[in-house]
Each structure stands twice: as C-alpha cells, then as structure tokens.
C-alpha cells in the first residue's frame, strides 16, 4: 500500500481537520489557545503522542476483541502518555519544562481516542503513523491560528512580540468566552467559504 503524503496532508489540514472539521478535542483546545506559543507547544505534543499511539494501537488491533476495544485503547493511550511523561521528565528536562504542563491535557484529548477508533483500529501500522502525523499537523495549525488570533486580539502581540501599533488589553479574549467567540467566528468563516465554493 503506497501513501500519497500530499493527499494525506491535505486530508489532515483541510478536509478532515480535527479541530475545524471533525471538531474533536475542543475542551483542551479552548484552554491552550490563549497564546500562539501555548498553541504550538500543545500542538507539537499532540503530534508526538498521536503518531505513537496510532502506531501502537494499529499493531495491537488484531489482539483486541471488538467489545472491549474502547477500554483497551484507553489503557494503552494512558500508559503510553504516562511513559512519555516520565521519560521526558528524566532525560530531556528542558523540553519537559516547556511542554510538561500540556501532557495531562493530552490524556483526556479525544482526538487521540478518535483517531485510534476511526483509523488506527482498521489500518496497518505505517498508514496509521502517517495519519497521526497529518492529523496532528492539522490540529497544530488550527490551534496556532486560534491562539494567534486570541493573543493578538487580547494584547496586540504574537508569540510574545508586540505587533500592534499601540498597546491595549482586551481581557475577554484570553478568557473562556473569547475562546468560544474566536472558534465560532473561524468556523463560521470556514463554512461560509465552503458554501460559496459549492
């Protein structure tokens, strides 16, 4: 089976974008899109965990009876994330300082379980790994877009650098309502563009 990487990337970023199209993992996404930097950190952690958990689940898929697949997936993913957490903390402490706070959020992220169920449980290891990478990339880009918008609207900065011509603070945007408003507007815009095309 050959994999068309370009098509796969298009699928992960556009047609099946986990955040904007499948709308999975909203809760941690709203929490971590307060700034562009946070969004990138969370996104990178998700790519790593998703690619690995997809691979492991795909390798074990024939050993798992259908009736108990969900608990089995959860055990595998939770074990996996905890192992990664401990290993990073022990061997790459600087990375842990930057990304450590996101790891508990990933365990409860339903994108991971969603991809295990929808893709890895039915496909070979390599395509599952690729699916993890492209879906993670789509998630990262979407989250970074949200994070950048919210950071810019709330403080006029991007990745911590001031880019607005004057200083201001619009606290609402980094709070929960700002997350909902931004996400709602972005989704509305995407749907509008799609309807126009159709």
């Amino acid at each position, binding site marked *: 089976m050959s994999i068309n990487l370009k098509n796969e990337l298009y699928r992960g970023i556009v047609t099946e974008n986990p955040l904007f199209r499948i709308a999975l993992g909203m809760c941690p996404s709203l929490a971590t899109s307060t700034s562009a930097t946070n969004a990138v950190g969370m996104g990178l952690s998700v790519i790593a965990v998703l690619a690995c958990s997809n691979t492991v689940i795909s390798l074990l898929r024939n050993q*798992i009876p259908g009736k108990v697949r969900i608990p089995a997936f959860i055990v595998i993913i939770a074990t996996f994330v905890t192992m990664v957490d401990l290993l990073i903390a*022990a061997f790459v*402490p600087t990375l842990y300082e930057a990304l450590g706070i996101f790891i508990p959020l990933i365990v409860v992220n339903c994108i991971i379980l969603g991809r295990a169920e929808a893709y890895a449980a039915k496909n070979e290891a390599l395509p599952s790994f690729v699916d993890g990478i492209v879906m993670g990339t789509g998630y990262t880009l979407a989250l970074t877009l949200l994070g950048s918008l919210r950071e810019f609207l709330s403080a006029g900065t991007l990745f911590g650098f001031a880019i607005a011509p004057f200083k201001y603070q619009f606290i609402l945007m980094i709070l929960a309502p700002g997350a909902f408003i931004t996400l709602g507007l972005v989704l509305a815009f995407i749907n509008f563009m799609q309807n126009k095309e159709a």
Partner: protein
Amino acid sequence: MNKRGNSDLKLLIVLTIFSAISGLLLAVVNEVTKERIAMVKVKKQEKALMEVVSKFDTVEVETLLSTPSDPIEMFTCKTADGKLSGVAVKLSTRQLSKEELAKLGLEENAKQNQAYDAPIKMLVGFSPDAKISGVSFLEHKETPGLGSNIEKPEFKSNYKDAGIEAKKWAVKKDGGDVVELTAATISSRAVTAAVSKAIEIYKKKVKSLEVK
C-alpha cells in the same frame, strides 16, 4: 448461554492481560526514571535557590515539616566567611492540618488557599534585612496561559524586594496589596497565602535564631 459465558471470560482475560502489561511497563519506566527525575528536581531547586538568595557558598538545610514528597524546609545560606546571605523557605500551597500548623508554630486559622490544580511548590527567599529577595516556583500544574502566568516577572514583582511588613499580603480583590493575575485569581490567592505563610515561618525561625 454457554458460548456467551465463554466470550465474556475471554474479554475479561484480554483486558486483564492488557492492564497487567501496562502496569508492568509503567513500573519498569518508573524504576528507570525515578533517580534521574529526583536528580533533575534537586538541580532545579539549586537553581531556584540561587535565584532567590544573593551570592552564597554554603547552605544549611533544616526540615521543618517532613511530609514525604512535600516537605517544608528552610535553607540558611552563608558566604565562605560565615556572613549570612539570606534564608529561603521551601513550601507549597498544600492545605496544612491543625497539627502541622501547630508544629510549625503557626496560628490555627492561618490563611490557606489551595491552587487551581496540584499544590504549587515554591521557594521564598529572604534577605538579611527582612525583605523578600524573591519567589521561585519549583513545580506547578496551573492552566497554561492563565494560572501559569504566576511565573511571569510582572506577577513575581509583587513580592520581590518588598519588606515583609511593608505590604498587606492578600490579593487586591480581598483588600490586600498584591495585584492578582487576570483570570487566575485562585492561583494568585494560593501563591499569596503561601508567601505569607513563609513570612510567618521566617519570622518565627529568625527570632529563635536571634535568641540563640
């Protein structure tokens, strides 16, 4: 009926095996990483100590409350010629019991505020002239982008270089002098309550040092 019973048993066995393997893997990884993680924490604490206390050569550690994994300790830092450079109190935002408070010589109704998530572990440094020389966080799990802003210098400057009696140690919302973080009042309150606890511990200890 019989067939169904069999397949249920199979499910049970498979899940048990999965859980057992997961448990084993976690135990192995925990064993392998335990020492290194402890080492990283010690290094981080050393770095934090240098951040909150100005130049020193020797450190004396005194354990004031020996709770496993979350002790309260006092570090007395001196220069090579024996001059005191500062004192640091290590504590967390954990809720202490009445017995523990009594052990530390604190009032029974000392203000305690818990963090948003797991206890925030921190070091509070004091200079010899009874000022807070700095606050440094060792471990916290506050929400990224909101509570995690306690690490920002703007927030830490609430405490840095303030005389221990110079401010009212409560957040503005509660009528104090500490400017709380927007959208993270719980975290700000927890840190402020811990700092004021550290101040009380420092006052008690330093007084007893003077008597000696």
